[in-house]
Structures are given as C-alpha cells and as structure tokens.
C-alpha cells in the first residue's frame, strides 16, 4: 500500500448527494484486469459520451481539474455497490483522498485498504468548499494526516477523525492483513473454544 502522510493538491467537486459507486465505475468494467489500470473507467459515463468523446461539462474534463488528487463529494458519497474497483479507479487516476460529510460504509473501508484517505468534514464546511472549488477551479486543498487537519483554499483549518490503527497503516503504507496474521494464535484459540456448532 502506498503510504499517505500529507498532500496538497487541486480538488475535484462532485456536487451530488448520494453519489453511488456505479457512477464512479460502471459495472461493465468490473471484469477488467486491474493490471490494465482503471483510470480510463473512472466516472466513465459522466466523463465521456458513448462515442468516447469528452463531455466538456464534467469538471474532470476542465484543464484546472485534470491534476486533481482530492475528490470532494456531498452527503453519503460513494454509496451503493461494494465494488472496490471504485477506489481502484480513483487511485489509478491519481486520487489519494476523498472529502465528504459522510460516505458509504463499504467505500470508506475500501479507501483505507488502498492508501486513499477518507476525510469526513461537517456538511456546511463541505458545501462551502464545493462552492469555492466551482468558483475557482483548481483551488488547492492541503491534508496533513499526522495532525489530522485539512486546510481549505480560504486558509481555514479543520480537524478530522480517523481510527488510530487505520492512521498507522496509512502513514506507514502497511496493511491490516499482516497485523492480523501476527495474531493468528488468538484466532486459533478462539476457534478451539468456539467449536463448530454453527456449520
């Protein structure tokens, strides 16, 4: 996993509540080999017309947003399907963080497993941020994980919460699996006392 420590980058506004993971990557790309990269599939049907030409109205197609590394969504961002391909597509394009008032639960977990930082900020702050980003495309946002702070284009700073262990994994680029495997004796002990009564 790529470590995440801090980031200062342009942020892409997605001004729609309940934006679902089907919009982040449509189902027809789910069988695509990850090795091929999923950047082209990201926001596919919002970004490209059926003939493959760019839809100029979609923000990612505007020059100021092309180098965005942070996506900013509204309430319940990335709800719906559990497809981790949504995070992979974001990461393959270059996104390293997502800011929203709230996230789909599974998406949030998937982000943490892939070195993408989910940042929940108060709804009013996010609404203001989206307006700023729309008014001044390319405006930059800074995220510092050690201090758990976000600095917005207006200079305001906001603290965000993250589980300490998830923070540790992100900062060091290590994943949970290695840690769990180090606890395998505990799992075996549980299995012994638990028995096999259910299945």
């Amino acid at each position, binding site marked *: 996993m790529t470590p995440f420590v801090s980031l200062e980058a342009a942020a892409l506004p997605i001004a729609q509540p309940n934006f679902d993971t*089907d919009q982040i990557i449509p189902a027809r790309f789910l069988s695509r080999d990850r090795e091929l990269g999923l950047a082209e599939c990201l926001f596919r049907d919002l970004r490209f017309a059926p003939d493959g030409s760019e839809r100029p109205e979609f923000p990612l197609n505007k020059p100021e947003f092309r180098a965005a590394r942070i996506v900013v969504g509204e309430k319940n961002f990335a709800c*719906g399907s559990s497809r981790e391909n949504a*995070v992979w597509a974001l990461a393959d394009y270059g996104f390293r963080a997502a800011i929203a008032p709230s996230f789909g*639960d599974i998406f949030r977990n998937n982000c943490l497993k892939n070195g993408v930082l989910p940042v929940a900020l108060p709804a009013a702050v996010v609404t203001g941020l989206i307006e700023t980003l729309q008014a001044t495309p390319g405006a930059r946002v800074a995220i510092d994980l050690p201090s758990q702070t976000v600095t917005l284009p207006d200079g305001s700073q906001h603290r965000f919460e993250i589980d300490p*262990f998830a923070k540790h994994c992100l900062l060091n680029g290590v994943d949970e*699996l290695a840690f*769990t495997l180090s*606890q395998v004796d505990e*799992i075996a002990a549980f299995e012994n006392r638990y028995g096999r009564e259910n*299945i």
Partner: protein
Amino acid sequence: MPAEPSPCTMFEKIWSRHRVLERPDGQTLLYVDCHLIHDGSAPAFQVLKSRGLPVRAPARTFATPDHYVLTDTRKIAEIPDPERRGMVEQLMQNTRAAGITQFGLDDARQGIVHIVGPEQGLSQPGILLVCGDSHTSTHGAVGALAFGIGSTEVSHVLATQTLWQRKPRTLRIAIDGTLPAGVTAKDVILTVIARIGTAGATEHVIEYAGSAIRGLSMEGRLTLCNMSIEAGARAGMVAPDETTFDYLHGRPFAPKGAAWEAALGRWRKLPSDAEAQFDCEVTLDGSSFAPMVTWGTSPENAAPITGTVPDPGAEPDAEKREGMRRALDYMGLVPGTPLDQVRIDRVFIGSCTNSRIEDLRAAAKIVRGRKVADTVRAWVVPGSGLIKRQAEAEGLDRIFKAAGFDWREPGCSLCLGTNGEIVAPGQRCASTSNRNFVGRQGPGARTHLMSPAMAAAAAVTGHLTDVRRLETAP
C-alpha cells in the same frame, strides 16, 4: 467470562459471541462463520497467491458464480467475452484448488449468491456471514449478522477467517398493522427507504420488528433485509421465529437430528431482550402502505403507484430540487404524469431481491391467462437452479412462456448487466431488482423498481400499473 450486560439487542448478542480480540482503537476482530464468494472474487484470490497464503477455513467458504454467467446457456465456454468468462473460470479454479465447496453451472444448486445461502441452509440464526457484495444484508432475514465487504476484506477473510470492524449503531424499525392486499415486502422496504432516505441508516444495523414484519414469510423477510443497504445500513435483521425455523428445517446445510434441537435452543434465545435499547427507533404503520414504484435514480425516489411524477418546482430544498430535476431528466419523465401512465419497454423479474419461488408465484398469478403487451420484452430469471426446477414442477414456466415471457437460467443478469445482458439506452424497464441508479441496467437505461406482481402487471398492460386492478382473473 464476565456476564453479558443485560438486556441486549439481537445484534449485540451475535457481535459479542464472535469477538476474537479488540484493538486499542476500539476496532474488534470478528470471527466469520460463513463466507460466501462469487465470480467477482478473482482479485482477492490473487492477493493470497501473491503473499503465499492458504485459505484458512475452506469448510466455512462456499462459492457460486452469478454476476458473469449468461442466462441463456449453462456452458462457461459459451460466454463470448474472455474477461467475463475468465471471472467464472477463475472462481471455479480457485475454489477447486482451495477445497472450497462450489455450486457450479452444471449444478442445480447454482444461483445468485444471496439466494443460494438461505436456500441451502447456510444462512442460519446467530451466525456472522460475510460476502464481497453489498446485498449480503439479505441473510440477516434469518437472524444472522450479515454484511457486505470489499475485495481486500474478502482476501482478509479468506486468509484469516476474521474481519476488523468498528461496532455499528443500532436502529429498530417497527412496522405494525396489517399490510393491505397487494402490498408485499418489496413495497414495505421501498416505503421505508422513501421515508428515511438512502443515507437514513448509514453506520447502523437495522432490526425490523412489529406485527407487519412478523407476518412476512421468509421470502418476504429476505427481500426486506436485502434492500437494507439501499437505506445505507450495514446490515438488516429480523429475529428468528417459527417462520424461520420452518424455513430452515431439512435444508441441506442446516443442523440435523440432535444438533437441530440444540440449535433451536440457542436460536430461541437470540431475539432482542424486551428492554433492550436501540440507538434509534422508527415506527411506521403498515396498514397505510400501498404498492410502490420508483420514479427517479435513487431507491428513495419511490412513491405509491396511485401517485404522480413529482414536481421539482414544489420542492423547497434547493439541493433536492436539483437532484429531482436531474433524475427526471435522465428518466425522461414529466412532472404531474400519473405514474400508471408511464409506458415501459422491458420487464425483469429476477435478482437477489425478488427471484424466489414465492416471487415467481406472485408474478405468475397476475400473468396467468394474459399476454405480455406487444411492445414489451419480458424476462423471468429465477434466482437458482432449484427455484427454476420447483417453478417448472408447479407449471409456472408454462404460464410465463404462454404469455410471451422469456424463461431463463439463473444469474444476476439484468440487475446490473455485468454478464452483458442489458437494457438498451433510453429504454424503460419495470424491474424487481434493487437499484435504479443511472446506468445500472446498462448505459442510458431507465429503471423502475417494484414488486414481482407489479412488474407482472406492467408486462401485461405495457405501462406501470396498480396490481390491485388486475388481481381478479381476466
């Protein structure tokens, strides 16, 4: 062991029984009783392979292909697209190599993973069940704690049989009263989502309770819990009762003999204690419910079929107004149009929400003696090979075929189209599935969610229809 703090919710009882250890940050390592996998699991097996890890508990893992299989053939070799064929082939190879029980395309037990689990008796009260698919909430209908996970989490469960979780909050949705005629579990859950919103239960586990829920069949409860994720919930649950026990008794993987009696003893202690506290409570009156259809691009955009396409102009909230405009534009609908005048092109009776035998019976009851409208192409995709066989034994296939329906093989099919079966751009589909997102049934496709009986009614009239008007024989 310290005594459990009493009184407890059903969720808390199951959670504490599966706790392996806690991390200082409050995350809990939970033991997984049953792990269901499908043909999207190739990347997870790849992780194991690259790290040289075996599957820890193959006997607790069960596999069936559903997302990429075609519903007009049972031959993997006939899947023309090599990527999709590869997804099915890899599932079969990976599970065979790991010694995991598989229900393949040559096996009548194959089907949609969330249909197969309960049907085989794998989904049991009190267990913790996971699957790399958001509709895993389905299995909570038997009184299990069941939730969807991502691909990396699937690899974690394969390797360790455990999963890290932060304890979610609890939400009790009590629905009392008697459901009116024509109102099914699908209408109940669409009503719930319309009321609490698609983020209404985020970070919560829902327990459904009340007399209207107790009165639902097992199939109905599975439909109800299936769509909990559409309200944002981590999981949905219904306390096990005689309906549950009758359903599970004699199923292939359910306990037998003395083990069955012992299990019953445990299961009867599972329901939430009378004084248990929930973090949130919602109470609804089931007797006021009506058959529902969706008009927009989120499951919360649901309304009684007797209503009209809503007017964004009448919505005071600017953000909601904009969302409604966008949805109606995509759906090609004009505000004020009576919902039962909306013409349709396709009908899909299927998906893990509504493709069980009871769903097919309800649809066949409406279809019997009628014809699919000339302009409509209608499909029935049974949820499993066993359901298909049962329906054929009851003659349901002949009713559907005589009416002009396609009677197909089991799989996810038109629910999301990963197998290539899609609705054409601009076409409108009356669907018993669970998501009406933009492009869900294919790029540009327009989805209206409803119950199987309502979808059958739409098929024979060619437009969205109040099934109560057709419930007498033609």
